[in-house]
């Protein structure tokens, strides 16, 4: 997810940052089946997609088919 034309700056230049975490939060009383399905798909696919994006470092926007290929 690093844009083209920019570099990662070394920690000798600036201090290390804390890790961030992607989290999914639900409204406890939500029973809508579509929302539940959407959340389930997010839970299953988001870690893979995020990992892929971080490893590749190049794509800024991926089309749906491209992401599907990567999975």
């Amino acid at each position, binding site marked *: 997810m690093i844009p*083209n034309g920019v570099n990662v700056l070394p920690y000798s230049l600036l201090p290390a*940052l*804390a890790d*961030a975490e992607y989290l999914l*939060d639900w409204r406890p009383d939500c029973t809508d089946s579509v929302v539940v399905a959407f959340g389930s798909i997010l839970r299953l696919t988001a870690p893979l997609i995020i990992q892929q994006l971080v490893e590749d470092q190049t794509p800024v926007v991926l089309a749906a088919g491209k992401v599907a290929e990567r999975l």
Partner: protein
Amino acid sequence: MIEDFGTTALPYILARLRSEHPLFELTIETGLGPDLLQRLEAGSVDLVLSKRVAGRNQGTALCRQKLVWVGQPGVFEAGHDIVPLVLYPFPSTLREIILRTLREHGLRWSIRFESASIASLRAAVQRASEWLHSGSA
């Protein structure tokens, strides 16, 4: 949903959801995580995907992301005493992480560009050398 996820993975996820629930109706919004979590507490949204500081959260953890500093070569170098920043606006989690880190290390900073749009932030960073005078950094 946080915007950086919305601009990358969302089309694929929606396509898959559509195949499983052809008649679904879903409203998806992107925004800053803390704002979205407030709306979840208020009951105006059902589900929030957000990014927070790792290790002290409720919710279902999906994955961790290592944060790094990025910039065009030469925009900030050793010897510069003020860190020029391109940031999401308050109350962004990433903004909080960055400013707290600089504060804890006694570093000075100057917020030179802020936007809630990740496309604008990317463009500002990618072209910083054209609009950010490195001598002031």
